[in-house]
């Protein structure tokens, strides 16, 4: 504290400042005390406000969030002001929004016919319902808002709510799936006769499938069990198990809780999971492998089993009226092979009904367009169909024709197959103009339909010499798109499902000469380096 004796070495306090000086100032004691109190008060206040920061979110739970306001802002346009599922947009939706006043909920953990738990409803609001218009509200609404709106909906609209405790179904943890479980599940699928509605291969083509109605007497189809991504309640093992146990109230799907035990229900769930197939991934190229010889001429040629498939989503055509919100076909799977002269492309898709008759004229005339339902095809019936679309000529750069049947100046070349008429090549310049049949069609087709599943083989030469036909050259990413029609869904012309542009690649085989040249080049380079190193060293 003292300034120290002159002959002592410096002790690190280079400036000579004395920090303790302030306290030794001769201020009145009370001013020091007030200053200290002020400092303490400020410190305490900061500490309190910092800790309060962490509690802001839960404070909002205590602040009354008006569930009715959330409902009006977020829910009422589908679910209706009266909670009866009759909001202004409900008529465009399939499936329709939940009618809360009916008190039937599909996804819950309670016994058949019973009300859901409050937590079940919260879970649905958070996760949304896949493959429907019900969005995932988790992350959009806060937990407090979700709870408030669930309380509003259940207390205002759901009959019997709060009058009793619904019996809960215990959901045991899913076991590890084994092959014997899947076999047992397959046996159960047969014995319980799930195939009556879901079909022998799960493709919703069972004998009773077309007669089903939901509780509002609207037609409803059983789930296509192969399409995992379409399971509304989730496709994990425990999700499927829960569906068997609770049933899907409001729909024809019953509960089998009284019929088979936990292990058996999990085995059945494992079998159902084993049916999953054809789910599109982010793979966007159909790779056609080279075949040095004859291409397969039939859909059941065993060579197709070794070709890598690629699956694509299809969606309804909503660009020109009538806007097709609920198409019948929602995914296709493609495989392709090519040889020096031809391309063979195998396309597969699910369709619960085979519609092979068309109300339209029997013969395609040159120049007739495939578009206008009323004048061209009449009122039906309509036949199933599938189309593979290419640009009429390879685009320069990235400028592809419009994905839906092209545009004026950028036509498309469409290989259209219809169950009533077979395959024919068309050209199109947009949805307004429709597709026009070519005078000379070069595409051939072979198909089969079994158990809710179509396989279609289209074969055409790589280069037809027709300027309106796409020329398929190896090594190029050729734009390719798909369209599909399910006849019994009233689909024909522009009422269709379609995809955006993907790519077809005719894989170039690596010739032996290329390998040899590469090897030779490698040898020369290595030899050259050795020589150079020797020179440097010496």
């Amino acid at each position: 504290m003292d300034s120290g004796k002159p002959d002592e070495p410096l002790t690190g306090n280079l400036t000579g400042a004395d920090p303790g000086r302030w306290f030794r100032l001769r201020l009145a004691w009370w001013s020091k005390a007030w200053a200290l109190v002020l400092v303490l008060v400020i410190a305490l206040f900061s500490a309190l406000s910092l800790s309060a920061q962490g509690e802001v979110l839960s404070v909002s739970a205590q602040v009354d969030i008006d569930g009715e306001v959330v409902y009006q802002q977020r829910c009422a346009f589908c679910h209706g002001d009266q909670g009866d599922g009759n909001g202004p947009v409900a008529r465009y939706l399939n499936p329709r929004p939940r009618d809360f006043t009916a008190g039937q909920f599909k996804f819950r953990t309670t016994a058949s016919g019973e009300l859901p738990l409050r937590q079940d409803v919260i879970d649905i609001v958070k996760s949304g319902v896949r493959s429907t218009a019900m969005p995932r509200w988790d992350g959009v609404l806060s937990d407090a808002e979700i709870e408030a709106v669930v309380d509003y909906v259940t207390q205002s609209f759901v009959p019997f709510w709060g009058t009793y405790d619904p019996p809960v179904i215990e959901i045991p943890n899913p076991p590890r799936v084994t092959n014997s479980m899947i076999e047992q599940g397959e046996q159960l699928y047969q014995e319980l006769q799930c195939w009556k509605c879901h079909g022998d291969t799960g493709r919703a083509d069972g004998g009773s499938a077309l007669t089903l109605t939901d509780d509002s007497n609207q037609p409803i189809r059983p789930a296509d069990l192969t399409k995992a991504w379409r399971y509304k309640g989730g496709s994990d093992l425990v999700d499927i198990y829960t569906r068997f146990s609770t049933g899907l109230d409001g729909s024809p799907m019953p509960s089998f809780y009284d019929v088979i035990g936990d292990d058996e229900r999990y085995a059945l769930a494992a079998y159902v999971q084993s049916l999953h197939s054809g789910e599109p991934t982010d793979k966007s190229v159909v790779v056609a492998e080279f075949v040095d010889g004859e291409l397969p001429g039939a859909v059941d040629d065993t060579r197709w089993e070794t070709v890598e498939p690629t699956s694509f989503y299809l969606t309804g055509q909503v660009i020109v009226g009538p806007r097709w919100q609920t198409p019948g076909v929602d995914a296709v799977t493609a495989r392709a092979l090519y040889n020096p002269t031809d391309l063979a492309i195998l396309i597969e898709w699910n369709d619960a009904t085979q519609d092979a008759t068309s109300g339209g004229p029997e013969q395609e005339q040159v120049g007739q367009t495939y578009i206008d339902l009323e004048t061209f095809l009449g009122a039906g019936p309509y036949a199933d169909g599938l189309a593979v679309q290419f640009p009429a000529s390879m685009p320069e750069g990235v400028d592809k024709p419009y994905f839906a049947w092209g545009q004026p100046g950028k036509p498309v070349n469409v290989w259209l197959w219809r169950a009533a008429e077979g395959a024919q090549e068309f050209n199109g310049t947009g949805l307004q103009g429709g597709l026009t049949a070519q005078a000379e069609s070069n595409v051939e087709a072979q198909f089969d339909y079994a158990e809710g599943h179509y396989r279609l083989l289209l074969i055409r030469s790589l280069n037809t010499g027709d300027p309106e036909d796409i020329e398929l050259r190896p090594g190029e990413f050729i734009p390719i798109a798909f369209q599909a029609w399910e006849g019994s869904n009233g689909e024909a012309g522009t009422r269709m499902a379609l995809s955006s542009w993907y790519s077809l690649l005719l894989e170039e085989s690596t010739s032996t000469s290329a390998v040899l040249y590469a090897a030779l080049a490698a040898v020369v380079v290595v030899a050259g380096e050795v020589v150079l190193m020797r020179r440097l060293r010496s």
Partner: protein
Amino acid sequence: MKTLRWYWLPALILTVVLAACGGGGEQSPAGGEEGPGAPTGGQPTGGGTISGVVNFTGTAPDPEPILMDAEPVCQERYPDGAFTETVEVNDNGTLQNVFLYVKEGLVDQEWPVSSDPVLLDQKGCRYGPHVLGVQAGQDIVIRNSDGILHNIHPKPINNRSFNLGQPVEMETTRAFPNSEIMIPVICDVHDWMQGYIGVVDHPFFAVSGSDGSFEISGLPAGEYVIEAWHELYGTQTLSVSIPEGGTEQIEFTYEGA
């Protein structure tokens, strides 16, 4: 402020608590203790009976054939073909499958529920009986006699529904706690299957049989309104006065097109 003694507050609290709990509401006795002729032990023991027939005049619609190709196990039970049961006119000009029940006139009390269940059978891909009467809370045994997949799917409004799979010969028991006229019952697997369940709060109901007749017995003396229900022709009511232990005959008449 005047100082209160220390014991006033606990005394006050104790008084309030005792007053709230000690009194208690009078428990209403379970049924069967008051009223003349009120039933005891589950069986109506009043002596009055209403019996009668449901007549049918005019032309009934032709029964429509049911296509049972999807279910050969059931189809072969109908070598002459299966037909809808919407209007079943008996040979003697009476109407079958009319549900009748006492709508008004009963003493307001709890009528004991029989411990005997009623049976709803699925046989030949049909519901037997086509129209079933049951008391609220009374067990219904739902039997699958066919051994093929049926699902039992009633669609009530005043009661909770259920949808249960029955893939083999088996029985499931359920009950409806609330009265409801009438609950449609369907099977989703077989879309032609249709049945009806009438649930009433008391045991005074009947279904007209294959001779059009019905009987509701055990009624105390009184003035009653009887309602008849038919799935196509709707409801009708009749008033009837029953003396103690007496029998009254009534007739309903439904007219076809």
